[in-house]
């Protein structure tokens, strides 16, 4: 038990560079594997939560641009969504990484100031940017579909109340669209968190072996030649993460549906394969 506590102290924050620097190579106890893979989950949470939050804002703008009537906004938004939804995330990571690597290492001169570029080829920034753009495209398509499905009656009621423009959007269109989009958006969030496992398998180097859960799981499998322990541990972590996500999104779902009797009681998660 004390050995396990020691492992926890050594490796629980290993993925962010704290604790023991040298990864265990020979003796892989179960406790050690659980701690190390759990440490990697920090990166999955970081990538997932941040890209979800920023991607949500970007997706709102994109969905409005696509649904709106202004041509020079609609066409770029459609093109963006087409490119990011039509190509594999794996390839997007590769393209982005290679493009970031090609930037001059000493930075770009703009108006006399030097913009550093080296950080872009690091996973914490480069992969995050790709994930943000990717989830923004998928979410924008979901929100766009929801915006088009806002019931006509709701809009007529808003007109009757004298709401227009920004007030109508903020108080009627947006909450209704979000309510309609929420089950699909829950699904997208789950897929996004699952997609974060790709980061360290797609060119982005794990700086000082600070990787995500699957990076450590595959490291352990490489060392022990035993896939039957490490991968199931990672799988259990992700099942727990998925359950947490469903719970959190369920809370939002109840809040969005709180005016509808009956609908709020059962946050049924019907898994659709949106991606």
């Amino acid at each position, binding site marked *: 038990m004390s050995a396990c506590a020691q492992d926890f102290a050594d490796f629980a924050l290993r993925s962010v560079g704290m604790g023991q620097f040298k990864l265990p190579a*020979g003796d*892989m106890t179960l406790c050690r594997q659980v701690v190390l893979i759990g440490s990697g989950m920090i990166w999955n949470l970081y990538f997932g939560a941040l890209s979800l939050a920023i991607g949500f804002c970007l997706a709102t703008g994109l969905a409005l641009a696509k649904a709106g009537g202004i041509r020079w906004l609609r066409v770029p938004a459609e093109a963006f969504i*087409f*490119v990011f*939804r*039509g*190509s*594999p*995330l*794996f*390839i*997007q990571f*590769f*393209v982005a990484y*290679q*493009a970031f*690597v*090609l930037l001059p290492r000493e930075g770009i001169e703009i108006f006399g100031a030097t913009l550093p570029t080296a950080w872009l080829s690091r996973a914490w920034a480069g992969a995050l940017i790709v994930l943000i753009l990717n989830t923004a495209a998928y979410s924008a398509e979901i929100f766009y579909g929801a915006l088009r499905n806002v019931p006509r009656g709701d809009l007529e009621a808003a007109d009757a109340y004298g709401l227009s423009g920004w007030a109508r959007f903020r108080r009627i269109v947006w909450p209704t669209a979000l309510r309609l989009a929420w089950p699909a958006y829950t699904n997208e969030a*789950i897929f996004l968190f*699952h*997609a974060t*496992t*790709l980061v360290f*398998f797609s060119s982005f180097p794990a700086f000082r072996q600070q990787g995500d859960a*699957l990076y450590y*799981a*595959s490291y352990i*499998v490489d*060392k*022990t*030649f*035993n*896939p*039957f322990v490490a*991968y199931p541990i*990672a*799988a259990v972590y*992700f*099942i727990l993460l*998925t*359950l947490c996500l469903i719970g959190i999104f369920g809370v939002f779902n109840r809040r969005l549906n709180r005016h509808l009797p009956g609908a709020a009681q059962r946050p049924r998660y*019907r*898994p*659709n*394969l*949106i*991606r």
Partner: protein
Amino acid sequence: MFATCSDPSALNGLAWLACYLTSGKHLLFYGSFGTVLLLLAVTAPLALLFGFGGAVASRSRIAPLRWFGRIYTAMVRGVPDIIFFLFVPIALDQSFEWLRSRVYCDPSVPVRQGNEFVVCQAAKLPLSTAAPWVHQSYGFTLAVIAFAIVFGAFAANVLSGAMNAVPRAQLETAEAYGMSERQLTRRVLIPQMWTYALPGLSNLWMVLIKATPLLFLLGIEDIVYWARDLGATKPANFAYPHPDWRVWYFLGLLVFYLLMTWVSQRLIDRVARRLSRGQATMAGEAIRHEVTP
């Protein structure tokens, strides 16, 4: 390929590019697009079969079979597919070798010795004396099985949803005509479920297309492998020296996938139109109005 390519250093401009793009390695690169298409062609029907089995199992009257079906359909929801892609091939490989080692080797020698997985030469799969193509197709087969298991689970989700979407009245009518459970499934449920399954299945096809570059993770020499290999910086001692061109190769792959998904979407739209003809759905009504305004 061309006679003029015998001395690449003497060439420049378009002639150099033409020779460069037809070099032996590039032909292998073009061939690897075939590998991707082959994977799609083999995996799609296999996954549909797995999914069908899973969907039928999750509706079974026999409890253990039903549990199996439910777990199978639920597992891909909680666990990232990449974990399965990494786990299934190595797990299958070790299982096969373990089974063979019990037959061909001395059973008293344990297979797991510390951090090693050791089987005797005779139990190796494929045998170390086998031709390179055997090794490659063995790896490819394991990859196909991994893809089929994961996408079969996705398909089982879609198909069981579609089976539940077939209107109750249709099934009750069939029961009233005295059809047995079996007849009902074969003659009413399965023919009617496809129109409900199509949106999900077409989505799945898109997901499958976009999952094919993951073959690279399984050590297959696929398009990602060749793009990395060919695009990397080639110093002057190579026949065709060039700087780091990987970003261009990957942009090429991006365009390839965009084309694949775009063409698929066009085809799916046509099939969807076809299937909704004469159906009592909104899409079917829309077609009816077009024909008879």
